[in-house]
C-alpha cells in the first residue's frame, strides 16, 4: 500500500534519514520503534508531505506522492495525526472535526462520518460545542484521532497517540487502533510504549540515527536480543 524507497531527508544541513526504505501492507498495523531523535517523526512528516526528501521516492497505492503538497496527500487517503495532537484550540470540538473533513470528497459526506466518529468517541459528542482548549489531555488526544478519521483515510498515521496520557486512556487508544484496523484502515504507528506496541502491531521496524536496523514481524522482534535489551529493558 505504502512504499518508501531509499529516501534521504535533511533538516537544514543535518541529515535526518539515510537511504531509508520500508513497505506498509494493506490492513496491517505497522509500527516504528526508536529512541528520541532517531528520525521517526521526520519519517512520518516526509510521508505526509510536510518535509520533502532530498532523494528517493514514496509511493502510495502505486502513485508517487513525494513532492506533493500535504493537502493533496490527505485527499489521496493518508491522514496524519501529529505528535501532541495539534488540535485547533480556538475552535469548537465540532469545528475541529469538520476541519478534518476539509478535503472535497470527505466534505460531502462529513455528517455521516461525524456520526461514526461520535460512535467511536462518545465524549466528543458530549463536548461538541466546547472550545477545544477546554478539553482534558485524554479528550484532546481523542479529538486529534477523531479529526484524523474525518478525512475517511485509507492509511492513518499516528504519531505517539498515547504520549502523556493516563493509563486508562492508553488502553483506550490501543483499543481504538485495533478497531480501526478491523474497519480496514491501515495504521502506521509511532509509540513510546514499546511492549504494548509490539503486542498490538503486525510488523515493525526499529529506527536508529536515521537508519532502519531491524524490520520484521512483531513476534520475531519481541524475541530479538537487540530489541529486548535496548527497548524492553530485559
Amino acid at each position, binding site marked *: 500500500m505504502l512504499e518508501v524507497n531509499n529516501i534521504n531527508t535533511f533538516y537544514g544541513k543535518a541529515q535526518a534519514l539515510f537511504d531509508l526504505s520500508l513497505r506498509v501492507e494493506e490492513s496491517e498495523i505497522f509500527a516504528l520503534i526508536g529512541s528520541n531523535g532517531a528520525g521517526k517523526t521526520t519519517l512520518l512528516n516526509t510521508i*505526509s508531505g*510536510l518535509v520533502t526528501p532530498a532523494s528517493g521516492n514514496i509511493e502510495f497505492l502505486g502513485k508517487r506522492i513525494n513532492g506533493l*503538497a*500535504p*493537502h493533496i496527500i*490527505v*485527499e489521496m487517503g493518508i491522514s*496524519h495525526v*501529529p505528535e501532541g495532537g*495539534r488540535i*485547533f*484550540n*480556538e*475552535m469548537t470540538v465540532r*469545528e475541529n472535526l*469538520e*476541519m*478534518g473533513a*476539509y*478535503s472535497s470528497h*470527505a*466534505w460531502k459526506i462529513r455528517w455521516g462520518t461525524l456520526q461514526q466518529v461520535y460512535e467511536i468517541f462518545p465524549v466528543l459528542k458530549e463536548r461538541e460545542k466546547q472550545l477545544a482548549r477546554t478539553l482534558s489531555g485524554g479528550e484532546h488526544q481523542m479529538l486529534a484521532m477523531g*479529526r484524523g478519521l474525518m*478525512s475517511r483515510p485509507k492509511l492513518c498515521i499516528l504519531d505517539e497517540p498515547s504520549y502523556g496520557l493516563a493509563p486508562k486512556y492508553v488502553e483506550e487508544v490501543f483499543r481504538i487502533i485495533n478497531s480501526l484496523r478491523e474497519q480496514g484502515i491501515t495504521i502506521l504507528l509511532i509509540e513510546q510504549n514499546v511492549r504494548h506496541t509490539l503486542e498490538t502491531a503486525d510488523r515493525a521496524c526499529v529506527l536508529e540515527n536515521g537508519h532502519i536496523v531491524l524490520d520484521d514481524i512483531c513476534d520475531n522482534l519481541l524475541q530479538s536480543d537487540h530489541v529486548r535489551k535496548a527497548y524492553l529493558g530485559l
Partner: protein
Amino acid sequence: MVEFLNIFIGGLILGGIYALIAVGLSLQYGVARVLNISHGEFIMVGAFLTWAMYTFWGLNPLASLAIVGPAIFVVGFVLHRTLFTRLRTSSASPAAYEGGSLIATFGLMFIIQNLAIITWGTDIEAYSFLNTGVSIFGARFAANRLTMLLFAAGICVVFYLFLARTRLGKAIRAAAQDPETAGMMGVNIKRVLALCFGLGALMAGLAGSLLSMCYPIRTTMGLEYTIIAIIVVVLGGMGSIVGSFIGGLILGMVGSIVLYIDPSLSLVAYYFIFILLLLVRPTGILGK
C-alpha cells in the same frame, strides 16, 4: 444629551471605519504573517478610484464599491502569490519571513504612493455626495457619514459570518492558529494565505471608497491610516479579528471625544493610548 449623541455617534462613525481597516490588517498580519506597511496605500487607491469614477463618469460611489473591492482583491491576491509566496518559501524561518515581508511592504508603500502621485498629483481632492444633514434626536450628522458607518459595520458583520459559518472561513481560522496542521487537514495553504492578503486589501480598498464620500483625500493620506490600523490591531490583540473590531470601535470613541476637545490632538491621543497599552497590557484586549 445632544452633545453626548454627537460624541457617541461620531465615535461610532470613526470607529466603524477604523474597525474595517484594522480587520483587514489583522487578516494580513494574523493569518498571512505580513505586517503590511502599505495597507494605507490600498485605502488611498480605493479612495481615488471612487473619486475618479464619480468625477469623470458620474458613477455613484456606493456602486463603485462593487468595482473597487474585487479589483483591489485581485491585486492583493496576485501580490501574495508572486512576491510574498516567493519570500515565504525562500525564508529560512518564520521570523525571517516576517522581517523580510515587512521590508517588502515598505517598498510597496513607496511604489504605490509614487504611482498614485504620477497619476493623480498631490492636490487635495473632494466631491459632494449625500451631503445633507440628518437629525438623530437633535444631533445632526451628514448623511454620507451615517452611510459610511452602515456600510463599514455591514461589511464587518458579513465578514464575521463568513469566518464563523463557511468552509473557507473555518479554513482561514484554522490557518491562523496553525498553518501546517491546516495543510494536513486538506487546506491549500498557499491559496488561503493569498486569499487572506487579498481580503485584507479588499477591506482597505472599500474603507478608502467610503472615506472618500466624507472627507477630502490626497495621495499622501495612506500612512496615517496604516498607523491607526497598527494601533488598533495591537489594541485588540494580535491575530484576533474580533479584537480588531472592538479595538476599532474603542479608538473611534477616543478619537471622537478628543475631536470634541481639540481636533489637533487626535493622533497624539492615539499614540498615548498605544504606549499606555504596551505598558499595561501588551497582549491587547483579546490577545493571549
